């Protein structure tokens, strides 16, 4: 039995230690905001926070997260930070097909909480593990820049 915190709640599972956190989140906890785009750490669609650090849930065997604090997009939807990101992505037009977006939002939040006033290069670096095939990234970069300004003091 593996126990950890998921979006603020203590949860446990008897899935095998090698099960991918991604599958556990989607299948057992029905958190569909964490998406699978590659299953190999190469697209970022499955990004979550592990102890506040951005990580790819497709590469995490759940045996390694006993006691950890896991947050998914569902866990941050209610936060002020998410609201700012939501609005900024809308204004900047950063969302097309949407499949990369929950992961992008997680990467954006991770970046801003570490670096509340990132430069353009730092933004590009911050989302460089999150593949987006629709937007060519620029409007996402703009969205993050906007969120940094709008959310000044929040991060």
């Amino acid at each position, binding site marked *: 039995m593996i126990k950890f915190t998921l979006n603020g709640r203590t949860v446990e599972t008897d899935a095998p230690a*090698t099960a991918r956190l991604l599958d556990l989140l989607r299948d057992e906890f029905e958190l569909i905001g964490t998406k699978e785009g590659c299953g*190999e750490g190469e697209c970022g669609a499955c990004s979550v926070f592990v102890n506040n650090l*951005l990580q790819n849930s497709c590469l995490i065997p759940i045996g390694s997260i006993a006691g950890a604090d896991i947050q998914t997009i569902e866990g941050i939807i209610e936060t002020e930070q998410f609201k700012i990101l939501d609005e900024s992505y809308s204004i900047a037009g950063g969302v097309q097909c949407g499949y990369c977006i929950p992961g992008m939002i997680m990467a954006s939040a991770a970046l801003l909480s570490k670096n509340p006033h990132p430069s353009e290069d730092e933004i590009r670096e911050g989302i460089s593990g999150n593949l987006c095939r629709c937007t060519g990234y620029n409007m996402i970069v703009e969205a993050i820049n906007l969120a940094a300004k709008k959310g000044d003091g929040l991060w």
Partner: protein
Amino acid sequence: MVEKITAYRFERLDETLSQLNREDCAIIAGGTDVMVLHKSRRGVPPKIPKPIVFINHLSELKQVYQHHKDLHIGACCTYSELLENPLIPFALKNAIKTIAAPAIRNRGTLGGNICNASPAGDMLPLLYVYNAKLLLRSVNGNRMVTISDFIQGPRRVQRFHNEIVTEIILPSVLEDSHVVFEKVGNRNADSIAKVSFAGSIRISKDRIDDIRFAFGAVGPTIVRSVDIEKKLVGKTIPLDGADIAAIGSAFDKIIRPIDDQRSTAAYRKTVALHLLRYFLSMKQYQPN
């Protein structure tokens, strides 16, 4: 088909070592190599043929400290942790920044990169240049090996199944040397090296005092030749064309890359030699 999976996650290193002594296990640090290597198709956990031992939570493996002139780096330090650590040399940080992307750098570990022993491992060329040593620990005690002895081939390392790499030791961190790392990948993030080059040079009074270079992804292991390096010691800077050509052709003979889905042997070899010559042709070198 619920297979029984045995996995261990001990609170302490000594317990972990005892278990490893009892049973041959698959060690998982960050898992960023293991999970991909053993990946199943969508929706199914990876198939790992041995019992598993998780180690990346062990605080004993996460220390970074200076001891005499040597820098000791805990094997389970993640890339992100190393980037934030003031003791880590600038050149190594530059190499770390070329690895993957932030989320992977939050999980992947230095020890994992070494033990995975991929010829394209981006930490390896510099570690060869630094003459890095590895501290291996088992219930029987400690053992020290140089990185070049430890790594034997792709995914082949000289580790007994009861051992864990606990520290990477960089002897006297080349303080007054000019150190470079160049990675050539297919794009600017999340790319595996097609060729990489690390070099260091120390000059005293316009003469080369110490010089080293290592190439990644051009052979089964990192290519370094102390014999070739020695030929340059004592030469004055800037090097003349004939010396550079001689070194180039010496490496030309020992670099034997392959064609694969990422690049061609011809490209790898040509670029490796370009980077070497470029390094040797610099007009001046600044310690960094």
